[in-house]
């Protein structure tokens, strides 16, 4: 059952233009000029209950604008949004009680207070009875392993600890959907992994639907089953992660260490990425040539060591950005 329904959604911004220098500044006061930016252009999609969806795109693609329209922060110009059958444009407050938001770049916690006081504060904001708040804090602090620093002022926490607290603060009122806007920004790989595990656990335990935006491909790869890619305000891909990999992973990277030098040239389906005489790195398009063909070309008896790998997802996604951009 779809709990987020977006149909033909569009949003434009009017940005004031200013010419260079003092003259330009004066001119913009007398006769201001504006430029219209189409941040989101006619997009439609649906998200089912309990899904973990990645909503990704390069900077300025329109993903944050979309998330802000879904959460009632921005008013759309055109189109329909229904989140839990609530229209964010007209019923912001009702929606607020049912969703949680974490913006990685914007802290919502009170930095001088402890996480515990912060959670109590959010409990009060969402009108949750005192006793319920206490038990929820206990439950979430166990799940997110906060016991150690729950009474330390937020300003003294590490970034990773703070993000964990941010997520817990947005879960106090048991939202049905959690919007995570770049939750792992600025975190080191170990902490990122930790946060991902916790998000997964939360999705499993509470069946919370998760709408995630991130620049970190491994976030998406490890967390989400479905991915929507947005670029220049348009949806360029809406597919299952497995489909994405299947369709785009027809290229393999073959790295080989050779006994003797091999003279190999680009052929149909084979691209040489690196040739250092005894060390070779080639890309094989399996739609045109099989990996076995490529190995035959290298002469198996001549190979000391070989590594065959997929093209990193990061590269696939950036190629989708570029490819669809050209179209």
């Amino acid at each position, binding site marked *: 059952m779809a709990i987020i329904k977006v149909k033909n959604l569009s949003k434009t911004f*009017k940005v004031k233009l200013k010419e260079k220098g003092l003259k330009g500044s004066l001119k913009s006061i007398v006769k201001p000029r504006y430029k219209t930016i189409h941040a989101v252009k006619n997009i439609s999609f649906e998200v089912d209950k309990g899904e973990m969806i990645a909503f990704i795109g390069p900077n300025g693609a329109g993903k*944050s604008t979309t*998330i802000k329209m879904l*959460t009632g*922060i921005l*008013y759309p110009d055109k189109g329909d949004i229904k989140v839990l059958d609530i229209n964010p444009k007209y019923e912001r407050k009702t929606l*607020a009680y049912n969703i949680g938001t974490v913006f990685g770049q914007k802290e919502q916690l009170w930095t001088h207070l402890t996480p515990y006081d912060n959670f109590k504060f959010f409990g009060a*904001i969402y009108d949750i009875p005192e006793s319920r708040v206490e038990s929820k804090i206990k439950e979430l602090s166990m799940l997110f392993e906060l016991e150690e620093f729950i009474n330390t002022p937020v300003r003294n926490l590490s970034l990773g600890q703070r993000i964990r607290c941010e997520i817990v603060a947005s879960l106090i009122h048991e939202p049905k959907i959690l919007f995570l806007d770049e939750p792992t920004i600025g975190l080191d790989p170990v902490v990122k992994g930790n946060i991902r595990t916790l998000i997964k656990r939360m999705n499993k335990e509470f069946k919370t639907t998760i709408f995630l935006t991130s620049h970190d491909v491994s976030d998406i790869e490890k967390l989400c089953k479905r991915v929507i890619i947005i670029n220049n305000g348009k949806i360029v891909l809406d597919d299952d992660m497995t489909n994405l990999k299947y369709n785009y992973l027809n290229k393999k990277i073959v790295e080989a260490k050779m006994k003797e030098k091999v003279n190999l040239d680009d052929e149909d389906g084979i691209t040489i990425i690196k040739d250092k005489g005894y060390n070779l790195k080639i890309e094989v398009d399996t739609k045109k040539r099989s990996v076995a063909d490529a190995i035959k070309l290298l002469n198996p008896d001549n190979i000391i060591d070989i590594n065959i790998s997929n093209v990193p997802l990061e590269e696939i996604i950036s190629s989708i950005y570029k490819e669809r951009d050209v179209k």
Partner: protein
Amino acid sequence: MRKYLFIYKSELMSNLQYVFNVFAGFIGYFILMVIFLNLWKYVYSNPDEIINGYSMNQMIWYVIVTEILWSSLSGRSFCNKISEDVRSGNIAYNINKPYNYILYSLMSHLGSRTICFIMYVIFGMLVGFIFLGSFPTLSILSIIAVLISSIFAFIISTLLITFIGLFSFVIEDSAPFYWVYSKLILVLGTIFPIEYFPKFIRPILTFSPIYVVSYGPAKLFVDFSWNNFIFIFIAQIIYIIIAYMLCFVTYKKGVKKLNVNGG
């Protein structure tokens, strides 16, 4: 209501670490009081003289009270905060929370200034007592009435400054408007009581915010009467409603055309 009390409480707790910053403000306050003490001593040829209905002691207490209200308000930084929130789009992150933004900023500002207000009251009373050797005669009930009137004055000031800050939705920088407002309050409401101004200006001042944010509580402190209290109290209630409505309408209209930086 519980959520707004929590906002107040959280801001109060947050600001406990800034207690010592208030002491720096005391220096400026003290210098100002010394200047006024000398000024009024110079103006009044003898301390029992009455000018425009005020004795010298009353005049000094008047400035002490209006300055307590103004100094502990910290209006400029509050106005900048609101204005910056609007300009940067930060205000957006308050929109998807289930509270009323105007009441949120009101309670949060009251919470952040409570400790400062209490400390200024203690310091101001101490300065007055050291300079003048006595307090104005007030009963317990009238002290409570003055306190209520002061809190209402604080609420109105906060709402009016919120309104000025929210002006950033219309024009980019609301600082010039705050500058004009603060100077009007300083000249027309802090230094001299309304009775000191020419007759034709007095009705304008009586209906202006100056009457409810500055003159009212100070007048009650130096020359208390229940008649005055009731009159000031009603005026303050009317002003709270007006100021709230102004904020509400500006905010409602503003968020509709909100642009958020970075998306």
